[in-house]
């Protein structure tokens, strides 16, 4: 059964003459990782902060765990955990002091030593915040977001600025949060992150949602064409390839052939055909569309432009 933990309906928010959120409606279900993806300035953070109760919106309605974030902000803080984009703590606060301070603020907290250990921060418990690496800082913010065992966790651009290794570690962490039954609402402008992590994503641009669904659904819907690229030195390869069903297009560049087609069986069909035609292949790879391509298709530009 679908159980909406977050429900946003026709959210609108402007700062002076700038429209930050033009019209956003979405639902986040219990136990899923939901990603709001879009370029910087698209309205991701504003939307998220309205949902967290940190920002007042102009129009629409927001409900989180059945509470109104504007009216019940205090009650909500006990049940949600947040991490902000580019956040800092006091430069010279020690890791354990931050954990200790945050622990004192909530009615019930998890075993903080175990939390630090799980996040690989045990050795850093006496370190000043300013001496932590980017990844360690983010892990500390994740710890602070999880300290009261919240039902919903908000993560705003959690891995921005991290190296790939630190990023992977954080992804594992977020998967772990979801596996423990929590709901995760995150924003990112990294398509790989959205694809690897999110059960469902919503694409936001200029303050409006333009698409929503599972990453696989979106790819299938907007970029159904798959590609197979292989190399072959034989003659007459092209003629033999064109007999494959479902093929839209074959291009040749020297000994490299690129086949484009649609359908779930396309890659299998190509493999079968290549094998049955006895084509001698020296290299073979697939070119599968991803969210990046979906974004480009929908908006006409790359997400980082």
């Amino acid at each position, binding site marked *: 059964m679908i159980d909406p933990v977050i429900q946003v309906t026709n959210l609108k928010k402007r700062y002076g003459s700038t429209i930050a959120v033009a019209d956003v409606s979405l639902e986040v279900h219990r136990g899923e990782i939901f990603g709001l993806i879009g370029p910087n300035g698209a309205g991701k953070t504003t939307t998220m902060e309205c949902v*967290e109760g*940190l920002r007042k919106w102009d129009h629409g309605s927001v409900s989180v765990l059945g509470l109104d974030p504007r009216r019940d902000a*205090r009650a909500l*803080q*006990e049940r949600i955990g*947040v991490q*902000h*984009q*580019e*956040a*800092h*703590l*006091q*430069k*010279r*606060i020690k890791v354990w*002091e931050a954990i*200790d*301070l*945050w622990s*004192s*603020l*909530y009615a019930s907290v998890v075993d903080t030593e175990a939390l630090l250990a799980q996040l690989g921060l045990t050795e850093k418990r006496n370190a*000043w915040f300013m001496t932590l690496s980017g990844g360690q800082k983010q892990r500390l913010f994740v710890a*602070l977001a999880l300290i009261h065992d919240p039902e919903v966790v908000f993560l705003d651009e959690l891995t921005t600025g991290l190296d790939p290794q630190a990023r992977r570690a954080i992804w594992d962490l977020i998967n772990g949060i979801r596996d423990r039954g929590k709901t995760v609402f995150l924003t990112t402008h990294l398509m790989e992150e959205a694809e690897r992590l999110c059960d469902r994503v919503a694409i936001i641009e200029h303050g409006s949602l333009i698409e929503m669904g599972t990453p696989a659904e979106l790819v299938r819907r907007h970029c159904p064409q798959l590609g197979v690229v292989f190399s072959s030195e034989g003659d007459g390869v092209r003629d033999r390839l064109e007999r494959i069903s479902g093929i839209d297009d074959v291009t040749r560049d020297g000994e490299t052939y690129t086949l484009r087609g649609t359908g779930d069986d396309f890659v299998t069909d190509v493999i079968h055909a290549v094998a049955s035609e006895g084509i001698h292949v020296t290299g073979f790879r697939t070119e599968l569309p991803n969210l990046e391509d979906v974004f480009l298709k929908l908006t006409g530009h790359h997400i980082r432009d």
Partner: protein
Amino acid sequence: MLTGFWKLTWVEIKVFMREPMGVIGSLALPVLAFIFVSRGLGDSEATNVADAMPFNVAIMAALFIAIGAALSLIAIITIYREGGILKRLRATPLSPLTILGAHVFVKLIFTVVGLGLLVLAGRQFFPGAVDVNLWSFTAALLLGTLSILSVGFVISSMVPTARFAQPLGSVLLYPMVALSGLFFPLEVLPTGWRVFANMLPTTHAVALMQGIWDGAGWGAHWEHVLGLVAVFAVCRAVSTKVFRWE
């Protein structure tokens, strides 16, 4: 409402103590200024050093401690705001009043510490010079500091960046000392300037501290108490309206 207040206060005290420049600027400098100015101006033969000065150096130092506290508060609030620390704290069950109140409280604590150092320096360098009701004087300094801190709060509310807020704080607060009546009586000023001087917290803080230094009771200086409370009330009201968390 007090959830986290003491913990946050204690954390902020520790964090402040770890910042060498902050401690030197707001504690050591006023005390050193007190010692140097006293030695430079004072007549070492006089039995009561304070009386031998052209102005009350102890009150000047106390005032600098109060202003140092306000400048430090401006720095902390603006840096915390820029770093998203205020916003992060606000996304917890901490009430806004607790977050800001803890910072003010920390500044008041360090003001008392600064005054303590001043008294110790006085005992050390000018034995027998100080014969003042210290409790009363401390209370007067704290009231004055609170009032000056509230001005600092308005400054940090209105100026978006730490880079501008800190120098602006110095430019606004230090000249107030000149008009405070510490160095010359306000009667010599033209009426307009005198009225202006009476709107400044420093003026009332100096008058109140001077009165208590001279042995008068609080009742004799109720108008200055009122002045400090009025500045605090106005600044608090303004801050509530314009304070920005990010």
